[in-house]
């Protein structure tokens, strides 16, 4: 029954797998039909905003169907926001796990981001297929690779944001409220519900400091080349920001590794 000594990499792999399964269980079945609410939140957002735009008789946005424009933008934004939020609480919600010394604070944060990305792929697929059946979505996007690259960039940025905030909220608890509040203006200025291209260039430059806006525009452009994306669109900027955030996040995790497990 004796086990050979496992290498640190192997232990990390076992831990990630165990946490992934445990978090998935928690995320999908914690409350009654928890999985249903994961799906219904973006659907309600899309439905509400689509009705709003349709009432003012807007059929297209930047050259593409307004429902496509909305749903693609919303799903991409959720890709970032859900990953960021779940990752942010990764350390705080996993404190019982640190009784097992194999589990380090970095493990649940990374695994949560992976799980959220995985779930968002499923949610997005279901919503997009549903819309396609309703005749509002292109079955074949013009540039699937660009959609993938942009979405992955948004996920990476969410992971970086979450890595940083997961440490900060443990050090200064009040910051949790700030980070939650920040998400609302971010929703508004990322061009989820109105087009950034309609803003005068002088102010648009300011809004495009926000990497999420670049990701959203890129995903829309990937769905249809006919879309008039903002001219300043830059995926390298999104990836650059993501890499910097992840690096700072890892640095914080390393620097405060002991503070996070101490009680």
């Amino acid at each position, binding site marked *: *029954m*004796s*086990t050979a000594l*496992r290498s640190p990499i*192997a*232990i990390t792999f*076992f*831990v990630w*797998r*165990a*946490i992934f*399964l*445990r978090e998935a*269980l*928690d995320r999908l079945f*914690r409350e009654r039909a928890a999985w249903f609410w994961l799906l219904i939140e973006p659907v309600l957002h899309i439905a509400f905003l689509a009705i709003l735009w349709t009432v003012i008789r807007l059929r297209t946005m930047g050259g593409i169907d307004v429902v496509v424009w909305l749903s693609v933008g919303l799903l991409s934004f959720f890709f970032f926001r859900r990953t960021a939020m779940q990752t942010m609480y990764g350390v705080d919600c996993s*404190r*019982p*796990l*640190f*009784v*097992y*010394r*194999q*589990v380090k604070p970095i493990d649940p944060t990374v695994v949560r981001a992976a799980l959220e990305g995985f779930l968002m792929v499923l949610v997005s697929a279901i919503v997009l297929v549903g819309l396609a059946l309703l005749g509002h979505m292109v079955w074949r996007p013009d540039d699937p690779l660009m959609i993938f690259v942009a979405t992955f960039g948004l996920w990476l940025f969410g992971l970086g944001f979450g890595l940083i905030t997961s440490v900060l909220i443990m050090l200064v608890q009040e910051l949790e409220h700030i980070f939650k509040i920040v998400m609302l203006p971010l929703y508004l200025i990322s061009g989820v519900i109105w087009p950034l291209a309609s803003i005068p260039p002088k102010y648009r430059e300011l809004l495009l400091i926000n990497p999420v806006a670049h990701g959203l525009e890129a995903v829309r452009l990937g769905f249809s080349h006919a879309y008039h994306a903002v001219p300043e669109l830059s995926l390298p900027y999104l990836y650059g920001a993501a890499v910097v955030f992840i690096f700072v996040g890892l640095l914080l995790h390393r620097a405060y590794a*002991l*503070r996070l*497990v*101490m*009680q």
Partner: protein
Amino acid sequence: MICVGDVYKRYQTPHGVGRWVLCGVSFTIPPRLSVGLIGANGEGKSTLLRIIGGVDEPNKGRVKRLCRVSWPMGSGGLEPTLTGRQNAKFVCRIHGHENDLADRLSFIQDFAEIGNAFDAPVNTYSSGMRSRLQFAMSLAFNFDVYISDEVTSAGDARFRRKTANAFKTIAKQSSVIMVSHAEGTLKDFCEAGIWLHQGKAYWFDQIDDALKAYKESIAA
């Protein structure tokens, strides 16, 4: 063998840095020797167990674990919203027992003897059931040293006897480091004793001597 070398520990509190809970603690626990930690409340027994278990870090000094040490069985380590089975699965997985998961689970279920509650959320458990589950979980793995923080005393008499017997059968390879306020439990399980008093640790080869020193200190 576990070497604890000159360990200092204090906690950060909202009101600044706390007092030194452990203040230069050193001892060596030889292989296969079961040790009981004795001391009044707040003398750092649980802190020391957590440091030995590698869950917490000392501010100064170091701990060398030259053997396989269990996690500190005690208050934490169970996710309340998940069932006993799901918690057990998680612990099996992080210890790398994906392949023989079913065997370990059936062992844990049999040993814990909590019946259908094994598939109920842990927050519905009584404290006795909780400690049964924790104990069964740790016995499912081959550790050289088992660390127990008050877990053994929470079970009823019959379960205590069962765990004591289980330990006796594996005593050839394993030992236990435990905190308990029940004198009987300590005498059942441990040979040597460590008395924690005012941040210092005093080693006694006989657990009875450690208990005597502790009693004299509180009588005085």
